[in-house]
């Protein structure tokens, strides 16, 4: 529906015309762009509903799978996690309308093919150091499914580590995963330990571990990991 500029003409008898006050070129531009943006929003919304579950009004795991297959990306691909981050999605496996809009608007896409094409750029954005910490902590929290849950089981942590840090810190991730699987002190990992590992990857020389100081406040699980590594190496 068109919104007439009030100053276009003084046509009388127009029942839907708005305030007949003077306007400027910027008003014209704004009108045009908001027209476009509302069109875009419409397309975004329609796209949402094409994947959403009829009864819940949300995109559920099934919907995400079909989205992924349309984009020709595996649903376990890290870029889907990055998309969730961009959307600031709260619940793992689900996107609601608000989140969907947020994400797609920020990416400036409104079709599946545009979304697919935006993924490389999204990945670059996420991997920028200023963003990556946020993404890294987000990915942990995204996996907390129960209400009061604060930790994630070892098996899932290993998968998540591989997904999120595998490309950047292959060696550290591989060894740490190996360690986590054989140790028995911890059955779950919490956010503090999760973040600690990231700091470890960034700060500690690997695999020599020469600058690791066990007297500093590293999470205990990392103290134990380093001890294990050192025992392996000797």
């Amino acid at each position, binding site marked *: 529906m068109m919104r007439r500029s009030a100053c276009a003409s003084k046509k009388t008898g127009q029942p839907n015309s708005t305030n007949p006050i003077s306007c400027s070129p910027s008003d014209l531009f704004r009108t045009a762009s908001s027209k476009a943006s509302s069109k875009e929003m419409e397309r975004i919304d329609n796209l949402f509903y094409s994947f959403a579950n009829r009864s819940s009004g949300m995109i559920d795991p099934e919907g995400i799978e079909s989205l992924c297959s349309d984009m020709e990306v595996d649903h376990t691909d890290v870029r889907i996690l990055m998309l969730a981050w961009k959307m600031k999605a709260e619940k793992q496996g689900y996107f609601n309308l608000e989140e969907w809009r947020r994400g797609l608007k920020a990416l400036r896409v409104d079709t599946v093919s545009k979304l697919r094409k935006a993924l490389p750029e999204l990945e670059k954005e996420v991997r920028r150091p200023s963003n990556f910490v946020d993404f890294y902590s987000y990915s942990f929290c995204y996996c907390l499914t129960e209400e009061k849950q*604060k*930790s994630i089981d070892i098996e899932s942590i290993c998968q998540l580590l591989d997904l999120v840090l595998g490309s950047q810190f292959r060696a550290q991730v591989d060894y740490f995963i190996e360690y986590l699987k054989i140790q028995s002190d911890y059955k779950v990992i*919490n*956010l*503090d*330990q999760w973040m600690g590992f990231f*700091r470890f990857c960034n700060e500690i020389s690997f695999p020599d571990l020469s600058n690791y100081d066990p*007297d*500093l*406040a590293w*999470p*205990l699980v990392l*103290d134990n990991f380093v001890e294990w590594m050192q025992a392996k190496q000797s």
Partner: protein
Amino acid sequence: MIESHMHRLVQMENSGLINMIVDEKYEDLGRMYYLFRRVSNGLVLIRDVMTSYIRDTGKQLLTDPERLKDPVDFVQHLLDLKDKYDKIITSAFRNDKTFQNALNSSFEYFINLNSRSPEFISLFVDDKLRKGLRGVTEEDVELLLDKVMMLFRYLQEKDVFEKYYKQHLAKRLLSGKSVSDDAERSLIVKLKTECGYQFTSKLEGMFTDMKTSQDTMQGFHASHGSDIGDGPMLSVQVLTTGSWPTQPITTCKLPAEILGICEKFRNYYLGTHTGRRLSWQTNMGTADLKATFGKGQKHELNVSTYQMCVLMLFNDADRLSYKEIEQVTEIPTFDLKRCLQSLACVKGKNVLRKEPMSKDIVDTDTFLFNDKYTSKFFKVKIGTVAAQRESEPENQETRQRVEEDRKPQIEAAIVRIMKARRVLDHNNIVAEVTKQLQSRFLPNPVVIKKRIESLIEREFLERDKGDRKLYRYLA
């Protein structure tokens, strides 16, 4: 002049310092002290040699399995050693403070080499308070208790001692086996002076319960005296949960003969103390049974509650199978087997006979009343024995419970410190926590770290965003 020969004099094979110590040659030692004093490192040399000798022999003692078999003997040996060195320092080394300190630190070093030391010291005290101090003058009692306190001070794990002491004290109080109430209380006072009110408040609670129970029983007998007549005489100790060592709840069906009076007591007590709950601790009681055997020999048997339940069954039957006994009494298997073993397999106390006559109790055994039982004593004690050193698995269990108890103490210390300091680095937290808890135990730095992490998870603390060594208190 002495300086050049100092080392040789000290190390001489058969007459060196160590030999003098071993043979208690006070005069020679005194002379050596006097001489070496004039030389700048003379006393240091004597002290160092003596210290390493004490540490080595102490270490040997603490790690020798033969020595550790008898805890009472072992602790006596420790006390004797202490006496010996004290005497050397007083008579030969002029009570030199530095020597005293060296002695103290050596003892502290080796006593804590064995994790069972706290238990053994408690067992020593238990033995003394049960029988060892019988007939000893008050003065000598105090002397011994002071010496025990000295050993106690050397312990790093005072909380472990507390646990065992509580267990052993409970047994003594409940079996009425304490040689001297005054001695018991005197030791509690000494512990309180050493460790503060918190350490002894529960122990004192146990004494209070005993006294209160006496009063309760008086009241009960006064109001029900006439009802009892011929029936069994009941004596109840009401224990406040929390003051006494925790006991697992055990099933056990009391014999009909005493159910009546037990109910009467329960009603009496709950009548005067509303809002309380009573549960019979059948694994802690004792009973005196009058028994008549085959040829009319009468004996008074002092037994545990479990043993009473089993024996009473033989009023109505001459032989019973294990399964039947188990079914009727509902005593847990492990305890029942131990109970039956003490009634049927111990020489001089076998008021029951077992078929077959094997050593161990099995499900298929049958038990008979042993009317051929004889004993030269009228009163026979078959009840469970005095406190004994724990078996390995029991010891592990106690260890675990101690570790569990320490966790909240460590956390409380961390929170107290962080609340006051707001921001603190890791090493300092560890140091402060250790200082705060040193009167009870030596916390493991790894455990402290774990507790910090747990507190971070529960959002009591957070890591500082800038300086990774720091923690912050979250209000």
